[in-house]
């Protein structure tokens, strides 16, 4: 039952970024650009033809991208299931998702070198490597530069359309209060999920799996997806907690929402572990050399530590940590676990990309990684602040907002 207090709450709440956005945007954009410039200098100084820079850039890019994709999936699945509980945090996830144009621009440092003929990142882009390599020749109808570019454009176009559609409708409802907009969003969430599944899978194949062009795994797309959801939900929690710390949404987002988001995090921690274990166990057990090379590179030359860190930090520790009810209901504690999960999700991306850079010398790490992470995250957040603009941070006229405000776990 919609409690009378619930409907009142929303009117007394600070629901827009207002002045904070105007202050934060230049700051974030400035830090972001400066950090990227620093990283570029550091990359040049290394003198390895920007190879390290590109690998690290891809790591951090995939990390930031996964937050946006995770948030997008969150929006879609809430509409597909006609969920009411999540309405209070849905706008946050819509905003986190709808940064595709910036993500496209930020993707250029990966795409442009490929198009311009650099082979620093992807071995299959080099005709010399392909010639005479039976497998790479076989794959060249798929793994070739023009088709790669076309696919990238396709992915970004799809994401741009979906995120824009859902954010626009949702904001439109803030003004018109038209309930039929909800219906139209629900109707399109199904096909959007299909497109989402296809694009995320192939983007993961193209950008990450083709780093090792001779290796393959059918579950790879789902693996990236499972980590992305985790990152997306963690980012939603952190965004909500940060906004509440700034005095916004203090009355619309409650412990009940954190509890439910925490449950989702807990579920996807297990899901990630399930997918990661399935991939590892099947390859380990069948013991076919063309597949085991992938894990061999990740358990020798110092990489075993990173792999074990993932098993513990990405699965076992957060599993135990998020199990008790009280951990999910306390904002501060849950925020800690979200930061923890984001750190390990970053490590997961690092684990996917970096063994290709230094299979022999062990895990590299340097200021350049930090600079790139700070740069990409800041630019992404700057874009999110821009997207949020002066609009409400809660879909204030969503017909199910009352249900969400009155949410109670039992």
């Amino acid at each position: 039952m919609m409690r009378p207090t619930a409907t009142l709450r929303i009117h007394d709440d600070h629901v827009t970024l207002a002045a904070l956005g105007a202050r934060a945007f230049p700051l974030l954009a400035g830090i972001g650009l400066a950090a990227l410039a620093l990283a570029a200098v550091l990359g040049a100084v290394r003198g390895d033809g920007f190879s390290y820079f590109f690998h690290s850039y891809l790591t951090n890019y995939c990390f930031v991208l996964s937050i946006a994709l995770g948030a997008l999936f969150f929006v879609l699945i809430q509409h597909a299931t006609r969920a009411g509980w999540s309405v209070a945090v849905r706008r946050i996830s819509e905003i986190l998702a709808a940064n595709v144009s910036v993500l496209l621009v930020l993707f250029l440092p990966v795409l442009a070198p490929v198009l311009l003929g650099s082979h620093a990142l992807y071995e299959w882009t080099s005709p010399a490597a392909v010639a005479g390599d039976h497998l790479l020749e076989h794959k060249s109808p798929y793994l070739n530069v023009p088709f790669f570019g076309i696919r990238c454009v396709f992915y970004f176009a799809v994401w741009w359309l979906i995120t824009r559609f859902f954010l626009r409708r949702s904001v439109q409802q803030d003004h018109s209060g038209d309930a039929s907009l909800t219906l139209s969003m629900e109707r399109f969430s199904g096909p959007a999920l299909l497109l989402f599944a296809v694009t995320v899978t192939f983007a993961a194949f193209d950008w990450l799996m083709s780093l090792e062009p001779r290796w393959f795994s059918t579950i790879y797309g789902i693996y990236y997806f499972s980590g992305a959801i985790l990152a997306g939900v963690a980012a939603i929690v952190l965004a909500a907690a940060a906004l509440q710390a700034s005095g916004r949404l203090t009355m619309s987002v409650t412990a009940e929402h954190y509890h439910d988001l925490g449950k989702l995090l807990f579920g996807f921690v297990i899901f990630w572990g399930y997918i990661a274990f399935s991939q590892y166990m099947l390859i380990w057990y069948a013991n076919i050399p063309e597949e085991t090379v992938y894990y061999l590179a990740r358990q020798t030359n110092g990489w075993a530590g990173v792999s074990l860190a993932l098993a513990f930090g990405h699965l076992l520790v957060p599993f135990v940590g998020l199990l008790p009810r009280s951990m999910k209901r306390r904002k501060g504690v849950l925020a800690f676990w979200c930061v923890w999960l984001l750190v390990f999700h970053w490590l997961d991306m690092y684990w996917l990309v970096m063994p290709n850079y230094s299979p022999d010398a062990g895990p590299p790490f340097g200021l350049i990684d930090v600079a790139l992470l700070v740069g990409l995250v800041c630019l992404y957040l700057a874009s999110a602040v821009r997207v949020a603009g002066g609009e409400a941070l809660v879909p204030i006229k969503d017909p199910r907002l009352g249900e969400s405000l009155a949410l109670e776990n039992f």
Partner: protein
Amino acid sequence: MSTITLPAEDNTTDDPRRRAPLTMGGQTLTSITETVARIAERPRPPRAWYVAFAVSSTLTAALILAAIYLIAVGVGVWGNNVPVAWAFDIVNFVFWVGIGHAGTLISAILFLFRQRWRTSVNRFAEAMTIFAVICAGIFPAIHIGRVWFVYWLAPYVNQMAVWPNFRSPLLWDVFAVGTYATVSLLFWYLGMIPDLATLRDRATSRVRRIAYGIFALGWRGSGRQWHRYERAYMLLAGLATPLVLSVHSVVSFDFAVSVVPGWHTTIFPPYFVAGAIFSGFAMVVTLMVPARAFFGLKDLVTLRHLENMNKVILATGCMVGYAYSIEFFIAWYGGNPYEQFAFINRAFGPYTWAYWIMVTCNVVAPQAFWFKKVRTTPWMMVIVCILVNIGMWFERFVIVVTSLSRDYLPSAWEYYRPTAVDITMLLGSFGLFFTLFLLFCRYLPMVAMAEVKAVLPHHHAAGDWQTPAPAEPHANGESHQGIRYPDQVSEGH
């Protein structure tokens, strides 16, 4: 509080401003008890029940005879032979285990997702789970050849001083299916205790009172009991959720840990789980549609329930289609000639018919559920769901048989043909499933009364508590001109 009028029997219209009612026909606590309990209390079930029971028990008898014949003569009476050493036995096993996944999904996962509409269908689906697991268990037990040594699978202290091999996925299966059967049974029974107490308290004959009374364990519905009961139910749901994922994953490991082309692929675990849910829901809908009509449950199991299940079928059908496509793509992309051959052989080899039946039924047929008309018209959804069931049986057939019939040794290639015993046992397993199912419909509460009552909009007792007015079950709901949308009813937050 606004009210809108809807045509009778339709709660499938979406209005985001308010939640559609979960039950129709103005249900009260009393009417729910009456509607559900009367089915089990009725001296004679509908004639259709007898007809169905005669057919299914005949098939069960055929299954038993075929099994006896097989055990007496040997597994040679099946069509399995090198290279197709696994055939109908494993196909049927995987098929039935898959069917068994819907029950736990509805009871556990939808419970955790607070999908309240599950209350009307969970009992039904859980029962199906148990019966399907029973059907599934028959086949691996028999296919080991000497079925009387099946206990060797258990790690027990024995005079041979040997232990089972825990590094074999086949042993994982024993533990996974065994655990699944046990936990499903506990979950089903725990959920049924309050309803058995209802039947006990309504019993008119001494025999029934004692029989239901023993199984109700003396349940008093007390506040302290409910408190712990709800905790236990939630814990079991939390445990059953990863369990249901693990069971079909372990079944997929049976194939995927091998190096057989078409079997060894990393997407198998989630793909099998999606397929299992897909087939399980299709079976639930296939049986629910006639059951709600014959037993007058249309007001409790409404079109909206069926529509929701059909949406799950659509979603999982798309996941299965995704897995088929990714497998094909990676078979090409991987560049392994054996893998490529296996997939081309599936689609265009000697079993091409089976492959295209599978694709048509599993990927194309459920696309009909994009249309609301199909999702909400009983006869249409039954057709789609039967097609899905056929398709999912063929999926397992395609995986098991086509990969084996043309493996690494071309001189051993063979076209597998099932024998009469194979087909009898397949049909017989359906007979066993339906026999158990019909007995369940007849003697146990088909809908979880206590759970449906808990999600009723107005927690009011029947009008006058002194003279209970047994509300007639509204079999067809003609008498209702309109319904009011109450405020708090929700199918999920």
